[in-house]
Every structure is written in C-alpha cells, then in structure tokens.
C-alpha cells in the first residue's frame, strides 16, 4: 500500500488551475486547493469529496503538501512565491504556465526546491514520475 500524496494547487480557479484540478481529481491524491482569499466562496465547490478541499491560506496548503502546483498568472507569481517560500524547501514545485521566463524566475527564487514545468494535461504523468524518483 502506498502513502497517499498531498498536492497543493495554488491558483485553483485560474483557467489552468481548473484544468489541473480536473486531471488530478481522477488520481489517488489528497488535493488542497487555494485561490485568492477575496474570492467568492460559492465558486469553491468540491462535490464534497473528502480528498479535495479548499484551504484559506497558501502557506498552510503548501506546508502540508508533498508537491506544489503553481497555476498563477506570471505577474502575481513573485508576490505569491515570496509568501510560501519557507515551506517549499526540498519540495517539487510544478509550474503550469508554460512560460520559459517563469521557470527561470522560480529556479532563482526557490533555489532549494525542485522546479518542474508542464502543461495541465500532462500533470498526472509528471507527478507519477516525481513520486517514483
């Protein structure tokens, strides 16, 4: 029996965030979803799945997570990352923006995390590879 991995998705209501949630919801993961604190809670539906829940603080979500997926617009990335940096040490961080500059910036701002980049439809495959290594 394998220990279930916890995955935090930061920016879960962004376009790519929604796609990531959709793909990962089919897998055997515990998903912690975060979107801007100001967002209307009515949008945050999870079909009452015990394996998917909204977390009100990105630091708490990332602290609990084994793997973190960043689905935030590049202009917000710097501010969000500086807030969660301390709990990302040693953890795989996956960027789904598919922008070269974003990945480079993440590698600079998170030197003690492992940075990966992929598109939402490949997220499950990448996570399985990360878990195996």
């Amino acid at each position, binding site marked *: *029996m*394998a*220990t279930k991995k916890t995955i935090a998705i930061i920016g879960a209501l962004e376009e790519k965030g929604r796609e990531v949630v959709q793909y990962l919801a089919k897998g055997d993961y515990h998903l912690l979803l975060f979107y801007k604190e100001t967002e209307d809670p009515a949008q945050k539906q999870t079909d009452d799945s015990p394996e998917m829940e909204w977390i009100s603080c990105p630091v*708490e979500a990332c602290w*609990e997570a*084994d793997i973190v997926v960043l689905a935030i617009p590049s202009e917000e990335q710097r501010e969000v990352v500086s807030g969660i940096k*301390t709990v990302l*040490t*040693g*953890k795989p961080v996956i960027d789904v923006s598919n922008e070269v500059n974003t990945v480079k910036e993440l590698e600079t701002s998170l030197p003690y995390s492992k940075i990966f980049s992929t598109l939402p439809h490949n997220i499950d495959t990448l996570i399985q590879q990360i878990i195996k290594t």
Partner: protein
Amino acid sequence: MHELLFQNINQRINLSPEEEEKLKTFFIPKKLRRRQYLLQEGEVCQYAAFVEKGLLRSYSIDKKGNEHIMQFAMENWWISDLYSFFSGEPSSYMIDALEDSELLLIKRDRYEELLKAIPSMERYFRLLLQNNLIATQRRLNDKLSLPAEELYRTMIETCDNIPQRIPQQMIASFLGITRETLSRIRKKMAAK
C-alpha cells in the same frame, strides 16, 4: 519552524549561525494530520523525521491483525524505520500521526549531502544512533526480564507525557501486554 531542531542539535554539538542557515536547506517542512501516514508497510522509508509539534508512532501488524507499537515520537524526538532508510529495502512498519503534527523531514540522499556540507553533523547523528541503540537494548532487556507492572512503571518514567496523550490500548500494545493486564496494573497502582 526550526527552533526545536536547532535546540536539539546544539545540546550535542555547536553550530554556527551560518551552519544553522545552511542546515535549514536540507529539511523539508511537512504538516501531517492525525491518522495520516508518513510511511506504510512495503514502501521504502524515504525520510527521517524530526517532530517539531505533535505525536507519531511506528508499528507493525501481525498475521492476526494485532498492532505492535515499536516507538512513539513526540516533540523534540526523531522517528523513522532506520533499517529501510539506510538499506533502501521495503519497510515492515507503518508510521502515522496520532495528533496533528509538524515535522522536518530529511531524505536519504540529502542526509549524506548534509554530512558532507556540515561535518560536525556526523557527530550529532552518531550520538543519536548511539542513544537509540542503548534505548533499544534496554527496552529489549526490560521486556525479557521485567514483570508487566515494572514495564508500565518504566514507560511512565521514561516517556514524558506520552502515556497521557494516547489511549490505553496503545500503551498495552507498546508494552506487549493485553488491555486487561494493563487495566489490572493501573488499578493496583492507584490503590497503593
């Protein structure tokens, strides 16, 4: 987040502020909720965990479904399956959280890198393993030679407040006695 770990280390060796900063980069901060697993039987134990907050246990389950608790780990303690961690072989144990917990994890490969980066940590881990070996030998000897009442008394004396934080059945499982025997011992001790 790392204060308790630094305290624990600095009781055994002296780290400079620069070494403390470097040390932080080797540990993965991880929160575990009550009943969540850090390790399950059959997996290779990837981590050694230092408990900053909370309580965990390691245990095995026999063919009849009985749990045998090997170790509890509360704040300021380490927990892992050392055999699996060092050999890379699948573990026979499970490690789960008995309370919501905050851990600092170190992976096997990062452990080796840490010893190279901060050589005095070699002494720290040697002292930990030495103490662990002594505690294991003592526990084995106690189990083979002491009556159940003495085993319980020793646990109360050596395990800080753990007995107050866990159900009676887990104390019995740790001591290798039945719940009924434990209940009899507690009644007898309370009557004295």
